[in-house]
């Protein structure tokens, strides 16, 4: 028997998704162990071994696992808490403050008490090196190795653990960075080293120095963690392949992750969109929005045939310029705190009560009203069946928290205030979905929404109503969607090289272009080779970053590699105009405005072997057998809303073809779905609940209800 395992370590919970041939997946959740997350991983695995039928030992379980894909927030937490390695920067003389200056940005214009984001490397460890390369890559002032040696000796004296090297214009000529890197490797081999052009050889100094510094800052932490985890796993009997989730939605070997820890900085939610896509496909669609509501945050993303990528983003106000999924995160989760602001308006979030002290109803010392407290008062949560009854919720504490902080200020009763919290957080989340759809020129009504996270299904109907989205999916594994998605992710390596050059036929340096492309292809092939990806599963995708001369922002667009081979400048230009037009509503094709090339990007992919979605065996009995009882809940329909008794179903007793008509609640151990009056739900053969507006059965034409003979859980 061979298992595949997705393990997603989050801030509060560690999620497991165990994939088994011929059987439904096993989902498991335990509390994360923050001091060393690998302890929780091993503990969770032991619990899973005990849950199997027949139960087995940890080493028996691990011996049967052929693949573990692991998502970790070790690097994310290192940045958020400022607890990375003691890091130094060697940089071109005259520019040692670029990292801290952040181009002079203050995010809050009117708040004179807001301070700059603390740099990951203090000024006293940012060391100038007297060297200079010009914008075209010509050496203006040669590097003197003895100066690098002196800087390295200083770092050693100062107890530095990691070093970042980033020189001005190194994208055009990395010779000085390489030479300085050699000195460090020779004279301070125990230091963790990141050389900017080895990580991100592209133009824009601030992006590069910031990304390089972050990589050096988090690298030693991730390296230590991965070394420890692999040792524990292999000692416990694991013989399979371990892969690590990256922010770009792909996976990578631990060997690469150790060198390029920054690749994992925003990897937390990165597997969600991939999983979402597979569920969208199971109902006949190739695009979807994915929303994931956890304890502290709400992540929204858009998938159009493949998850949407961006080339730079920020973590804790620090720039990271590596390709990552375009996931929009807002502070709206189950733990988000509701308050009345200075103008008397009700607000929810972004502050969160987190897991500690948690919502007031957890009874762990939380006194402030949260979204979860409101949901309990509104009847959406059963105080005796939260997390399958593992945590008893305290309704009185929830009511008290609202009374003390909201009702008096708003002049409402507790139920009305709770309903307000529910509606306001719904508006916030709908805005999050808008950010990734309408604000990028896409209409959210055109795609099904895939709903994930423990708290997501409680709010999804309201989000859908707000945006007029006619249908959405709550997959069987929605509460551990990222762990499930990790097993569907391809190996992925992104390369970038800058080549600033006017794109007109007379002035294109084809030879240089082909050289750079060749180097990137060779690098990609070598990495996939090391990761034992067979040749027929490898592929490479080329994108170019171009812009109209004098524009500031580039447009990335895909170009078939053959087009460069054929030196077809016009097709490239046409593709650029087209993409510019799609993004911004106009192009200057007719005006023949000059175009310039800025970067070449190559993504090397090792296609994962994806298992198809398993089919679930239908439980005996009709939908009535799943009816648990009735509960009085708040219905947010219409402008006022009202309380009403509605049906409560046991989600574990629903099977293919079962239909439920809203309003209703569907409870599972790990999540609760609140179906409002305008919606109905249909359970498909994978155990996915397909929620749709009443009367919109036309959306369901590709939903499969029949278990296919002999194909239960088979490989697709």
């Amino acid at each position, binding site marked *: 028997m061979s298992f595949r395992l997705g393990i997603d370590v989050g801030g509060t919970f560690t999620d497991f998704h165990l994939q088994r041939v011929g059987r439904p997946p096993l989902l498991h959740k335990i509390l994360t162990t923050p001091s060393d997350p690998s302890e929780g991983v091993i503990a969770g695995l032991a619990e899973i071994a005990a849950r199997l039928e027949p139960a087995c030992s940890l080493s028996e379980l691990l011996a049967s696992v052929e693949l573990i894909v692991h998502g970790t927030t070790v690097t994310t937490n290192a940045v958020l808490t400022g607890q990375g390695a003691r890091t130094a920067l060697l940089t071109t003389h005259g520019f040692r403050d670029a990292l801290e200056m952040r181009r002079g940005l203050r995010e809050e214009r009117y708040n*004179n008490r807001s301070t700059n984001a603390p740099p990951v490397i203090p000024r006293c460890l940012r060391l100038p090196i007297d060297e200079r390369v010009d914008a075209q890559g010509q050496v203006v002032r040669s590097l003197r190795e003895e100066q690098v040696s002196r800087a390295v000796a200083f770092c050693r004296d100062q107890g530095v653990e990691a070093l970042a090297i980033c020189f001005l214009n190194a994208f055009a000529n990395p010779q000085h960075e390489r030479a300085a890197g050699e000195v460090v490797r020779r004279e301070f081999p125990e230091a963790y080293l990141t050389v900017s052009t080895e990580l991100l050889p592209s133009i824009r100094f601030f992006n590069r120095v910031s990304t390089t510094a972050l990589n050096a800052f988090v690298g030693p932490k991730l390296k230590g963690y991965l070394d420890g985890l692999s040792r524990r796993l292999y000692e416990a009997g694991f013989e399979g392949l371990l892969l690590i989730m990256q922010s770009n939605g792909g996976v990578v070997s631990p060997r690469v992750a150790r060198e390029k820890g920054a690749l994992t900085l925003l990897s937390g939610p990165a597997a969600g969109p991939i999983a979402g896509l597979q569920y969208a496909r199971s109902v006949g669609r190739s695009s979807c929005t994915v929303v994931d509501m956890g304890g502290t945050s709400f992540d929204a993303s858009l998938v159009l045939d493949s998850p949407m990528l961006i080339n730079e983003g920020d973590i804790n106000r620090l720039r990271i310029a590596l390709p990552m999924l375009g996931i929009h995160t807002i502070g709206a989760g189950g733990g988000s705190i509701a308050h009345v602001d*200075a103008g008397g308006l009700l607000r929810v979030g972004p502050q969160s009560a987190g897991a500690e002290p948690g919502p007031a109803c957890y009874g762990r010392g939380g006194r402030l009203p949260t979204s979860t407290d409101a949901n309990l008062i509104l009847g959406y949560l059963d105080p005796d069946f939260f997390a399958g009854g593992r945590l008893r919720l305290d309704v009185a504490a929830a009511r008290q928290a609202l009374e003390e902080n909201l009702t008096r200020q708003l002049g409402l009763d507790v139920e009305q205030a709770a309903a307000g919290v529910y509606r306001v957080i719904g508006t916030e989340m709908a805005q999050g979905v808008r950010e990734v759809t309408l604000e990028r020129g896409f209409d959210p009504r055109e795609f099904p929404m895939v709903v994930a996270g423990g708290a997501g299904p409680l709010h999804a109907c309201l989000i859908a109503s707000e945006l007029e989205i006619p249908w959405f999916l709550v997959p069987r594994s929605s509460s551990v969607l990222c762990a499930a998605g990790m097993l569907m992710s391809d190996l992925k390596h992104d390369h970038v090289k800058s080549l600033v050059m006017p794109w007109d036929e007379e002035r294109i340096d084809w030879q240089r272009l082909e050289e750079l492309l060749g180097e990137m292809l060779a690098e990609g092939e070598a990495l996939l080779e090391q990761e034992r990806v067979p040749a027929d599963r490898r592929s490479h995708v080329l994108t170019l970053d171009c812009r109209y001369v004098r524009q500031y922002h580039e447009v990335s667009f895909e170009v078939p590699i053959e087009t460069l081979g054929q030196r077809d400048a016009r097709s490239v230009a046409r593709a650029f105009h087209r993409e510019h037009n799609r993004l911004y509503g*106009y192009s200057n094709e007719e005006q023949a405005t000059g175009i310039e090339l800025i970067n070449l990007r190559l993504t090397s992919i090792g296609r994962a072997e994806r298992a198809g979605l398993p089919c679930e065996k239908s439980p005996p009995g009709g939908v009535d057998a799943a009816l648990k009882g009735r509960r009085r809940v708040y219905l947010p329909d219409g402008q006022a809303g009202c309380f009403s008794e509605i049906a409560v179903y046991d989600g574990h007793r629903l099977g293919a073809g079962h239909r439920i008509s809203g309003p209703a609640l569907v409870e599972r151990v790990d999540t609760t779905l609140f179906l409002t009056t305008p919606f109905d739900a249909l359970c498909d053969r994978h155990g996915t609940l397909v929620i749709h507006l009443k009367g919109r059965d036309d959306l369901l034409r590709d939903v499969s209800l029949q278990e296919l003979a002999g194909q239960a859980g088979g490989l697709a």
Partner: protein
Amino acid sequence: MSAIDPILLSVYARCFKAITDEMSLSVAKTTRSPILCEAKDFVTGLYDAQGNMLEQTEHLPILAFSLAPVCRHIVDYFGEEIYPGDVIFHNDVFSFGNQNNDVAVYTPVFFGDDLVAWTAVKGHQADIGGAVAGGYNPNAVEVWQEALRIPPVKVYERGKLRKDVWDLIFSNIRFDIVEHDMRAQMGAGRVGERRMLALLEKYGRASFEAHKEALFQATCRAMEAEIAAIPPGVYRGEGSVYYDGRTPGSKFTIRVTVEVRDRRIRFDYSGTDPQTEGFVNGTYASSASATLLTFLQMVNPKIPHNEGMLRPIEIVIPEGTILNAAYPRATTFGNHLCPPNADAIMKALAPVLPDRVTAGWNHLLCSLTTGIDPRTRDRYVDIGFMGLKGGSGAMQGIDGYDHIGMIDASGGVLDQDYEMFEQQTPHRLIQHEYLCDSAGAGQWRGGLGVETVMEIGSDDTQVVVFGDGDFEPPFGLEGGHPGVLNLISLDYPDGTTVVPRNKSLTTGVPRGTLYKQVAGGGGGYGDPLQRDRARVREDLRNGVISLEAARGVYGLEDPGSIPVPPGTEC
């Protein structure tokens, strides 16, 4: 009157914000001039049928607060003749515009047959006609030498382009890019209109009107509560402007009287010096924006920006003063009177709001270089955002913000990236770093200033300088020391050094000249001897204060051994 639902009120507030944000995103993505898409020198807003502000998004606050008065002017001007499908342009500084180059697009929103709202998008255009490309003409004495005046004018009526009007405008503007960017602004206005209509369809007109007024009242109450926390009284402060671009040694004083009583605040500039002969004059809108953005930094930053916020605030700026020039004086420099205006307000309120005011901020001193790039033979233009950013003033409990730049942007305008800068201009950067001892010392020190050095890479280069802050340093408060002065100097290859005046145009600057700029640090707050010793040591260790200053100014008796990184020895 529709009943007020306190929850729906939050939903409206959130939606208004979302609409103006979405309009901003549209502008940032679709405009081409770097001052719009990169420096984000634009604002978007949403107004009710009468022109009252529902919400606005202020990338550059100095532009923002003239949108509502202009909207009201448009409503008066066209009266009954406002139709669905109209698009109206405006820039005129003598009908509430703030600066000639800042051109606004107003789009009426009709729900059925009724005018219910307006969207507005205003951005700084790369050119607006007048005698000098780009608009900064230190020699101008009248508005016509500065710009094409656009009083409210319909470029679309009932959805139909008025081609003759359009052509009249754009045949008086140098660059095609302006036409593109104005189209982009119109697109953003449409985005806002669509979203606003969707909101009205969902909740209905009556609900919108009732909740809008409730929102104004709630915001007004919040602002009144903030003002009520200020001790009632009359407070006075001054700020100085040096050199009008025509008479060397000239100096002008801005005088503000702030009166706080009955939960209202009044800023009265009677007694401010008369207008100048040159282009160093404010408009009512730019000066009132400066007043508001400074005051807003002293109250809870979370108060929504709508009409209600403005109700308890009164601003009086007599016409004919340097802050409110009379028709037809030149005014292009007006936005840059914000720093001395802010100084006057901070100084006035410092005695009663010691924990809300800041010490003096670094004033803007900026350069604009143009020439022919020898690598491409193309003309380049560079506004030196990178060099101009000094530090903010410290406040009680908080050091100033390093390298933030002028208070009118408050960190909203960004440096060029060094490598992109060297691609787009022929200059070579030599240094861009915090300047040691540039911040005013104090228990909380000012924000650090920055030193920029670059080698000019084109022959016959033209350097336009505009700004201030090279005569009087940012002030300290409560025993805090002043920051350092701004300075721009040119070291010619022949060994001579030239310091251009702070409003001037220098031509024929040769290749190889070293351009040097200091953007000074902000003023300090409180006695430097009271500064936390650990912070003094940290600043010393980081090389942002010298050992001399640590001992002499901060009185650090035992600096201990401070490791000096190789290559940073002074």
